[in-house]
């Protein structure tokens, strides 16, 4: 009896202890990778932002706040902050509204017509610089599809030659590319609303606008707010579409922050100034995201 019990106890002990080591063995490679490669860059950026960095020679001198003052005195920096904010505050709300409405209609649509869903999702997987590049052929005044169609209706917009035209064209492509992101998440949110809710409401009203505004929207708001927050975070990183569409031009008129910072770092190899501007932007982004996060959390608590 005693002999039978002992191996059993021992075995279960071994199982427990081996899984305990296993959990650390499992997590170790990923943890090492993350510690090695995600923590140092942020500190390095902060370090370079106070230094004069010459490629090939490394840090030649610490210059205090000079890089920061250079950035804050630069008109191109403030302009890029302004143009990025404008871009984000137009593109994100439009995508949120369109994505939600499309999700609502796809949810309404009978199951056998489900093919709308993969179609409306497709742009989300396209390469942004390729879409910007293709955008040139959509918006250029000689033969561009959008430009020609609008011309036909008597609307002449200088898409590629003015700041506002370029920005508008980039935002239109952004809406095309990113509305599916909100759309997909909104579908997940709307699918979570039980049928009984609608059935009960249908006894009171047959107005679908009311169902949309008083049931679908408030009940899926927690999920939508996640979409809003994530979309905001991604939009603040916008790079590929305007870069490929306008190259930041004409002049610097569509130079969003990421493009300016990219040029400063990679074309002019001004790592000090590039890093200082990155730190300032990181603080700006963190504050904006934190404000939204708190606001949204209050919204559904």
């Amino acid at each position: 009896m005693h002999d039978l019990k002992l191996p059993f106890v021992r075995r279960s002990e071994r199982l427990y202890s081996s899984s305990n080591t296993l959990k650390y063995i499992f997590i170790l490679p990923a943890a090492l990778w993350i510690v090695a490669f995600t923590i140092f860059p942020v500190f390095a950026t902060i370090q370079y932002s106070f230094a004069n960095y010459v490629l090939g020679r490394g840090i030649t001198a610490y210059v205090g706040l000079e890089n920061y003052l250079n950035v804050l005195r630069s008109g191109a920096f403030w302009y890029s902050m302004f143009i990025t904010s404008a871009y984000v505050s137009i593109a994100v709300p439009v995508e949120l509204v369109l994505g939600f409405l499309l999700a609502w209609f796809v949810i309404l649509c009978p199951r056998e017509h489900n093919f709308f869903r993969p179609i409306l999702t497709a742009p989300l997987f396209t390469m942004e610089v390729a879409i910007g590049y293709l955008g040139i052929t959509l918006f250029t005044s000689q033969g561009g599809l959008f430009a020609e169609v609008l011309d036909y209706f008597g609307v002449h917009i200088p898409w590629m030659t003015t700041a506002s035209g370029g920005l508008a064209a980039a935002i239109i492509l952004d809406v095309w590319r990113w509305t599916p992101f909100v759309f997909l998440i909104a579908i997940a949110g709307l699918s979570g609303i039980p049928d009984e809710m609608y059935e009960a409401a249908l006894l009171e009203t047959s107005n679908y606008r009311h169902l949309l505004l008083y049931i679908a929207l408030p009940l899926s708001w927690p999920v939508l707010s996640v979409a809003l927050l994530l979309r905001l975070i991604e939009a603040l990183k916008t790079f590929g579409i305007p870069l490929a569409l306008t190259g930041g031009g004409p002049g610097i008129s569509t130079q969003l922050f990421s493009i300016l910072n990219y040029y400063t770092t990679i074309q002019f190899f001004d790592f000090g100034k590039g890093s200082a501007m990155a730190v300032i932007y990181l603080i700006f982004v963190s504050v904006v995201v934190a404000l939204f996060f708190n606001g949204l959390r209050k919204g559904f608590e």
Partner: protein
Amino acid sequence: MRRALWLAASWRVRATTYIVLIVASIWVLTPFVWAIQNSIKSLTDTFNPAAIVPFVNYTPTLSSWIKVLSDNQAIPALLSSLIVSSGTTLLVILLGTPAAYSLAGFEFPIRSRDLNLWFYSQRVMPPVVVLAPFFILLVQLKLVDTRIGLILIYTTFNLTFGIVIMRDVFREISRDINDAAKVDGANAWQIFWLIAIPLSLDGLIVTGIIVFSFCWNEALFASAVAPQHAATLATFVLASRSTQGVNFNIAAVNTLIAIMPPVLMSLFVHRYLARGLTFGAVKG
């Protein structure tokens, strides 16, 4: 998809639904159709607004495709994109799956909420912020303009993301199955390898596809640290933008080569997509 809602809908609601969805589909499909159309036109036909229906209004030609594919840049770029994206995906799955399983199934002294906060903060940071340090790191490691350099950077950016989604996928597996396996004498490794992995395979595949398309579509680091020898399609597209200008037919071919693989892959994934894209914050 909502039966009750659809059955009670008036013809006006039904008509609106179809009109909105059809208009939206046209809006979404137009750039694709435009690109395909231009890719089989000759340069002169791309400027002819009347050239709409192939074979009727214009003679389709594969010359742009042949020109791009026989050029000595497109194929290496395609190859680079394939190697870098699949290499990263493989590495993320290899490093991330065990970590995700461990975080999903075992207790750790760190709270999972704190871990989430760390993951999200990783996401908030614009990648351009760490461009200089990674560039300098690659210079020091002599990995500038190599595929390995890109794989290193992309794995870093996608690993936390992959772990978060896969952890969520593993959490779906019921405790009962786990316990049953334990009673049958399976050890922790067997439970992981023979039960957890097969049960969460589709979730892992979706994670892989999302990571793959992130890498495939990435342009900032690709063009900054791998401008020539290891140039990916994103870099190739940016370069041909400045050399080919507005050659509509070439632009169309380049665009199609660059966008099709992830778009085609996306057609096969539905489940977990919303969850993957929101890092598990949204179920569905």
